[in-house]
């Protein structure tokens, strides 16, 4: 366990679940921004949230500290109704005997101390017109918005979200993601966000905790962790690096936007953003190829000079390259045959060709 200062979220959890499953971890997480807990289903993500909320009680030796509060330590255990957490469940869990307003009032009435006002939350989540509705009459996306609002109104110091977007359609997800980012920054509310969808995580999270088989395998800032070769992320089929780029200008004739990435130019499909805004761009490793010489004439627009920082085998036929570009990194997955034929080794300067299609996965603005 690193450090003794209790200025963040310190977790030392040991809990046994069904069928021999055991969640065992010891880590410190930031108490600001959005921390994603990412892993395959069955890795213990929801169990971890339940322990933080106090809905499940880990072994007596477990410790949960949040800022200067101790939620569990030794034999002492704070029940969920005394912890200042908000919990947004995958299935919403709105009270069926209350309408939307009633659900929100339920939280407001029991908020231990002053939190965001009803008006603020209703405004942030655009709920004005839903207030008199029965919960049964809401769409899946509306239900989750109400569930988020209800959790916020209980004036939490930490918001837990368990795959809140899992049952939603594409449009609803597109609305909620920027909304969650706005909440995190405007309300200065730290969030633990459980997900098994790396794209969702890439758009939302600032920090990432990887869980596998009940163990924490890695954690760190999202951008850094995504471009590392020693985590399971780089071995996933959809492995991708995330970079920060600044909008330079739009080229409406070709329907493209020009981004500045470490002083180089990156073209992506046209964005609505005005110039100067910083964006996250997710570039899948399989969409990058490398060549020794800058290709003279190519249909590929984005060709960046990079340096090979690391090389790692990824299965029998393929290898993964970590490429540095200024202070940022890209990942490229190429065949082992090509790597051998090109004689690639660490430190080599090469050119990365990025298919522009890869940049369709344009991400929400970064905080």
């Amino acid at each position: 366990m690193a450090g003794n200062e209790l200025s963040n979220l310190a977790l030392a959890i040991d809990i046994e679940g069904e069928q021999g499953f055991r969640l065992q971890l010891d880590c410190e997480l930031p108490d600001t921004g959005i921390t994603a807990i990412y892993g395959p289903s069955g890795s213990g993500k929801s169990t971890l949230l339940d322990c933080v909320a106090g809905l499940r009680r880990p072994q007596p030796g477990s410790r949960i500290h949040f800022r200067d509060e101790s939620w569990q330590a030794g034999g002492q255990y704070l029940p969920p109704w005394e912890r200042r957490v908000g919990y947004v469940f995958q299935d919403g869990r709105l009270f069926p005997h209350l309408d939307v307003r009633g659900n929100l009032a339920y939280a407001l009435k029991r908020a231990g101390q002053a939190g965001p006002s009803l008006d603020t939350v209703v405004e942030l989540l655009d709920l004005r017109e839903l207030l008199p509705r029965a919960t049964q009459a809401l769409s899946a996306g509306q239900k989750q918005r109400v569930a988020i609002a209800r959790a916020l109104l209980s004036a939490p110091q930490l918001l837990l979200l368990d795959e809140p977007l899992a049952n939603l359609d594409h449009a609803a997800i597109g609305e909620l993601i920027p909304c969650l980012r706005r909440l995190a920054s405007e309300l200065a509310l730290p969030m633990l966000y459980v997900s098994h969808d790396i794209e969702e995580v890439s758009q939302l999270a600032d920090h990432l905790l990887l869980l596998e088989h009940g163990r924490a395998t890695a954690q760190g800032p999202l951008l850094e962790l995504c471009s590392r070769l020693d985590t399971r992320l780089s071995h996933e089929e959809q492995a991708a690096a995330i970079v920060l780029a600044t909008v330079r200008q739009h080229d409406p004739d070709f329907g493209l936007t020009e981004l500045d990435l470490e002083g180089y130019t990156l073209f992506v499909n046209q964005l609505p953003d005005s110039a100067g805004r910083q964006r996250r761009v997710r570039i899948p490793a399989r969409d990058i190829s490398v060549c020794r010489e800058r290709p003279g004439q190519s249909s590929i627009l984005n060709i960046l000079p990079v340096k090979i920082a690391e090389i790692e085998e990824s299965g029998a036929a393929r290898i993964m390259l970590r490429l540095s570009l200024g202070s940022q990194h890209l990942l490229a997955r190429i065949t082992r045959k090509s790597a051998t034929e090109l004689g690639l080794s660490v430190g080599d300067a090469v050119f990365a060709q990025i298919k522009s299609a890869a940049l369709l996965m344009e991400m929400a603005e970064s905080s």
Partner: protein
Amino acid sequence: MPLSTAEQDAIYLTIALAGITTVLLLLIGTPLAWWLSRRRGTLPALVESLVAMPLILPPTVLGFYLLLLLAPDTALGQFWQALTGSQLAFSFSALVIGSVIYSLPFVVQPLQSAFQRIPQGLLQAAATLGASPAVQFRSVVVPMCRRSFLAAASLGFAHTVGEFGVVLMIGGNIPGETQVLSIALYDQVESLRFAEAHRLAAGLVMFSLALLFLLYRRGGRDSWRVTS
């Protein structure tokens, strides 16, 4: 033909007995039903079986054992004697005790099945919103089970009005003290006063029908539903 004093007493006594019994049944049955709805295992199964016994036992069996239990020479009988100065057996209080036991399943079972339908997830949500277990019960369970409470209370009341065997065994037939409607009716039939018997019998039929009709017309179940 106006009601005789004995008949009026019997009606009053029956309503008082059923009313007091219903209140006690709700006070005892609610926590019991909650406990049964959240537990699995040998002890809960045993308790559930005991609660359900009056459904299948002849009332006379229950009445017989209660009579032995409440007799003046038992510990309970003597305790009561010391406490109140009067005998427990063949008293109104004995009727209340017998009725509570006899009608318990009619209150516990609808409540238990209603409580079992409350998703645990809603209570967890309430807990994270700051609701302690008592508050969760008051603010989520009770309003969601309102109709089941109404059904439980109605069935408990009606079943107490309708009991005969237990009352006869432990209450005897003391006008103004333990002579309830069903016993008064039995008396009238015994002494071949059929015209009066008809009046009481028909009255009970109408009352029971009206109560059940009101109950079933409102729908037996609680009207909430969870959608996801």
